């Protein structure tokens, strides 16, 4: 496959996995928690690198999941001790992110880890680092990781689909039915961390937030069904990823920045023109109601 195709494929995989996880994320009102986790996985990655001196695959994933879970646990703990939720999220992730950045800026700055990479990712380098996979031939490392994470996420969501639905829409009912709500919460946090870190190499810490939240929010404006919302959100993710790539090529600018911008465009269109919850249809109904 050509260079551009690999980039498009990787970006689409980011869009797919972030879109699917994102749908659950915004229904669970945890958008800002995703922001927090996407920042604090940086610390996990840096520490994993310091320990193993390797920037690949499984170490990074483990480091990131630990960092993500640590964030979730700490936020919960501060909150239970009387700090407002918002503020405890703010304290935890900024601190962890700052430690990560300081470690990069002072100690490991020689590696291909640098602060810019952490923020924006380096999707243009992805096609260069290939690994040999049986049957499939040479595949870029990041693409392989992303596919594995995507499969895992889809698998976990599908086998517990009903449980995810109930815990997301009505946690009290879920608890009374005997579904382990707290366990599901932490599983979900691990899924978010996994997705984040897999996408990290491609789009960086902050753009992951765009990919997680914005396509899902756009999908939320089009439908009331969870299954359709997930599919739409994944579709929007892929569309924004591809659109972002071409905008970036056209303007010769940062690919991940353009992808985040493209998710914004998709959201803007949904916000204005969605048939059910869009601004245009609301205004239309309002004027229709005023006429009658």
């Amino acid at each position, binding site marked *: 496959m050509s260079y551009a195709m690999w980039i498009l494929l990787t970006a689409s995989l980011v869009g797919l996995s972030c879109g699917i996880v994102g749908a659950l994320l*915004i229904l669970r*009102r*945890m*958008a*800002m928690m*995703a*922001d927090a986790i996407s920042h604090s996985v940086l610390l996990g990655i840096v520490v994993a690198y310091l320990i193993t001196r390797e920037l690949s695959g499984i170490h990074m994933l483990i480091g990131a999941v630990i960092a993500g879970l640590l964030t979730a646990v700490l936020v919960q703990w501060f909150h239970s*001790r*009387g*700090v*407002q939720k*918002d*503020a*405890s*999220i*703010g*304290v935890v992730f*900024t*601190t962890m*992110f*700052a*430690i990560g*950045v*300081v470690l990069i*800026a*002072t100690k490991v700055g020689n590696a291909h880890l640098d*602060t*810019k990479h952490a*923020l*924006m990712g380096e999707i243009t380098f992805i096609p260069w680092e290939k690994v040999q996979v049986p049957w499939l031939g040479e595949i870029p490392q990041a693409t392989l990781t992303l596919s594995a994470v995507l499969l895992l996420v889809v698998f976990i969501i599908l086998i517990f689909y009903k449980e995810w639905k109930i815990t997301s829409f009505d946690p009290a009912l879920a608890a009374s039915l005997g579904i382990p709500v707290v366990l599901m919460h932490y599983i979900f946090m691990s899924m978010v961390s996994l997705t984040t870190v897999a996408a990290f190499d491609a789009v960086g810490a*902050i*753009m992951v*937030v*765009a990919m*997680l*939240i*914005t396509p899902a*929010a756009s999908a*939320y*404006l089009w439908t009331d069904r969870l299954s359709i919302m997930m599919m739409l959100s994944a579709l929007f993710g892929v569309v924004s990823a591809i659109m972002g790539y071409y905008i*970036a090529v056209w*303007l*010769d*600018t*940062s690919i*991940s*920045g*353009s*992808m*985040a*911008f493209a*998710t*914004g465009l998709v*959201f803007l269109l949904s*916000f204005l023109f969605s048939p059910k*919850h*869009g*601004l245009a249809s*609301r205004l239309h109904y309002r004027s229709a109601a005023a006429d009658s």
Partner: protein
Amino acid sequence: MLSYLSPNTQWVLLSTLILGIAAGMIGCLAYWKRQSLMSDALSHAALPGVVIAFALTGVKSLPVLVLGAAISSLLGALLIQGIRSSSRIKEDTAMGIILSVFFGFGIMMLTIVSRSAGGSQSGLDGFIFGQAASMVRQDVYTMLIMAALVILVVFAGFKEWKLFLFDPDFAKGMGLSGKWMNSLYLSVLVLVIVIGIQAVGVILMAALLIIPSVSARYWSSSFRSMVICSGVFGGAAGMTGSLLSSIGNGWPTGPFVVLASSAIFLVSLIFGAEKGLLVQALQLRRQKKRHHSNSWQHKTVHVKEAE
């Protein structure tokens, strides 16, 4: 120790000190308005404004960049408000959207602008993680004046702020316009964010608003003492952070400022006089002891009666 530093560094320290004080105080307002993360969204949203202001004027003068930042973060605030009120999307999702999309757009513009600025590098990268050392005297003056203005606004209307935060209905009854206070609050919040972005950077500026105010909670029982404590913590964190980052060549200021304030937070969490971990553990132990001795007395009384 300060006399060993170059005059420019001394000025920079002074400016991060007063910036920290202002941010700490405004952070308390944001905390009680339950909008700690709003400051995070608004500071990320400032990035495109900075870059576009630079691209339009071609000079890196702080007042111009601050103006650009202020416009784009206010626009972000309005959009968050608009999305929340005219669709079914919740506030935190709206904040996430604005934060990431504005930041992405900012990075896009930044890449374009620094490419066209050529080898000289506009130094705009410093706005992401902050580069206090890059401030010139002019920038320091701008920052000092604006931060002083913010502090003045908080102190001058202290009673009004308290009413506005804790009893908005009563405030309305007193003839205090909620709308007006809200706009004033948003203006000082944006002002303190935008003056801080050169020193602390857009990504971590929010930490300077959030962490000192949360730390101050562990030392104060009233709003007044919380605001003062938070100001002191913020100032200390700002100064220590920029001092630490000046040790290394090209070290970003923002993360060090955050680490300094996190250290203060950790100390407050453990030793804080109000709800600190240590105090609570001691209280728990004392209560347990009292309970034990009480129940022991009861038992002996019972035994005696039985005899």
